[in-house]
């Protein structure tokens, strides 16, 4: 079973990214949206944890949410892929199941 995990809260504010990374299995997809996108930024206190989850887990970040917060592709950890809203929809259909870490 392939699973898409969605994280929408900042890792500095909530423990949901940590829970997601600890509970998800290799081969899954992790999508960061809304305030969750700040977890994808280079050189933050959470960068090493997220970087070490890859490439076993493929991490995506929703680009419109990234841009809203003043960041671009250049600011995110190497290996993380950006998606737009249609890419978000594709991820939900490509995976068998979705877990939202609200």
């Amino acid at each position, binding site marked *: 079973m392939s699973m898409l995990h969605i994280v929408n809260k*900042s890792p*500095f*504010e909530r423990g949901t990214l940590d829970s997601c990374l600890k509970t998800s299995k290799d081969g899954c997809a992790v999508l960061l949206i809304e305030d969750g996108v700040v977890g994808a930024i280079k050189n933050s206190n959470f960068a090493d944890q997220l970087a070490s989850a890859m490439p076993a887990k493929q991490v995506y970040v929703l680009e419109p*949410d990234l*841009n*809203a*917060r*003043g*960041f671009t592709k250049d600011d995110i950890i190497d290996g993380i892929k950006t998606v737009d809203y249609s890419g978000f929809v594709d991820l939900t259909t490509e995976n068998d199941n979705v877990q939202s870490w609200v």
Partner: protein
Amino acid sequence: MEAWEEGDNPMKKFMFVNRKAPYGTVYALESLEVVLISAAFDQDVSLAFVDDGVYQLKKDQNTDGIGMKNFSPTYRALGDYDITKLFVEQESLTERGLTLDDLMALTYEDEDDDWAEKPSIQVVTRAELADLMDEQHVLISS
């Protein structure tokens, strides 16, 4: 003359403590609205940006893709309302991989110094911010 009327109006120190990222919740925008209202009362107002609140001042915010109003340019107007003290906690920036260069260059014109343009943002340590908070009469958190 009533106590609240001009002439017998002890100026109080108000600090707005911002701890939330913009857009994901409405806290940042709501706080900014209240800050602008507070400017009408001629008090000693300062803003603190701590924890995820530092993201509110990130430069180059572009909300075209999310269908929400980009309210970050409003911070540029604070100087015109005599709100000239924006304290950003150094530790919060560092934890997030950010530096002062990643924030908007906010300035105000100092009427006591021939309207010289000066930076509104002051980066302070956690200990310095604790002292600043300790000096306040009123703290308003968001």
